[in-house]
């Protein structure tokens, strides 16, 4: 069995090499080529917006904790200590 597979592989490689030897592809490039990007078209659905823009956001207003007085508890305690 193994011998049969090896023989088949040898035959294939031999014929493949012959094919390559028969066809020779020569590539020639243009000396000057203009590409119009504006005319390029891509097939598909447009998801993103066409123009680039920055959304205007409201300025974040940081509120500093300014000094507040909610009670005079400290002063009331101090009154006790300032008597006796």
């Amino acid at each position, binding site marked *: 069995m193994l011998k049969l597979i090896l023989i088949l592989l040898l035959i294939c490689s031999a014929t493949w090499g012959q094919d390559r030897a028969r066809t020779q592809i020569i590539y020639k490039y243009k000396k000057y080529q203009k590409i119009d990007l504006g005319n390029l078209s891509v097939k598909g659905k447009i998801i993103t917006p066409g123009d680039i823009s920055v959304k205007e956001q409201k300025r974040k207003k940081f509120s500093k904790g*300014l000094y507040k007085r909610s009670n005079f508890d400290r002063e*009331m305690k101090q009154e006790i200590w300032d008597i*006796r």
Partner: protein
Amino acid sequence: MWQFFVRLFLIFLVIKFTGTSVVAAPSWKKIEKSYMSKSKKKISKNAKMTIYLVKKKFYFSAINFAQKTLKSKTERIDSRFNRYLDKLLIKVGINSFKKVHNRFLSRSRAPSVQFLIARKNFEKGRYKKALEFLQRIPEHHRFYPEAMLLKGTIFNLIDRGASSTDSFLGCVEGAKSLAGETKKVKVKKFYKVIEEKCIMNIARVKFKHDNFKDSLKNYYKIQKTSYTWPFVLIELAWNSYYLNDYNRTLGLLVTYKSPLLDDYFFPEAEVLSALSYLNMCLWGDTLLVVEKFHKFYSPQSASLLKLLQANKNSDEYFFQIMFDKENRRQAVNPYVGKILVQIRKKIYFNFQLHFMKKAERELRKVSELKTSKLTAQLRKEVAAHGSFYKKIINQYIKEKMFYFTNEMNRLSAEMYNIQLEVLSRKREVVYAARNAVKERVRGDFKNVKIKKDQYFWKFNGEFWADELGDFSFGLKSNCKENK
């Protein structure tokens, strides 16, 4: 003849219901004999010594014997001893017994001891316990107004506003009643101050519950001639501030600039002035106040702090400055004189000074007695008590000065916040391209809020005593123009 018997009956009634003893004070011979005796009678030696010395008006000499009686496991404490112990605490102050543990103090039912235990529990934050002991003080006792003041304060701290107000009202009535019963001017003044403190606390409770108008009504009950009045102004200003009457706020605070109140400097008044200007969008004025605070007041406070750090471990330095000459105090630091003037008016300071002087007088009396084991012991103890009160006074002055410098530091940070807020708001105006008012009208009478029962006079650069505390600015708010 019948008049003689009527008078005798009246004297009997007075003795019966006031507990006055008609027995003359014992002689020193008797006291020495009692001291040296080794009797094991029901009324113990220490209790007897306490009673004899209190009768003899050697109060500071009696302190240690009273403390030993309380701490003793065997000595019985009866109502007679409690009566004299009560008198002793009134005469020498509660500080002398503060170091005695509560479990020994609670052996006595004397009302002044109950007050002392309540105070100690209050200082440790054990409010429920404090209230239990305050309940035991009778209505006509000398400590009753202070007990009600303490009770009201505790109720306020545990957010029981209604009970707090009731307690303060009880304090006001108690103080009025006791002031009426005494003929001594100093005692009358003392109860008047207690009464005013309780009225002020009612106003503070109203403020805490955002009831600003009622709070103002209570503050206005305090007379301008009162020692408490300079401290009322800043609190009145806060009420006006929260009622959005910024002109009135500024008017109240400018009262501190008058020569009469030169010794009363409150850094918080500067912060509140800055906040008032800020709320009226008067950026220039706000920044002026902030700049003055940082350029002038803060460096002075920093130099005071250096002075305090250098002498913080001294037991005498602050006591010495208190009794130094004014020009020397001013030379040390300009704030020292102002703070000391405020301390001199505090009841606590005056009490401790009074006790210290009494101890010194008693020491002289004891030194004149014939030398014996007892008098030698008493000389040591009374001298120790005298120096104890001196240390208390020194400590009190030191604490007040440190409190002042800490306040300056804390409020200096608040002033920086205000400065940043002004810059932030100015920047907002620029970004929004709003038109800021270029010319601000410097006050107009139509901006002054006047009540129906108020008269109005212009300020011509003179501070009249009866007008102090009633100033109002007439500035126009810049905020509407900025929108």
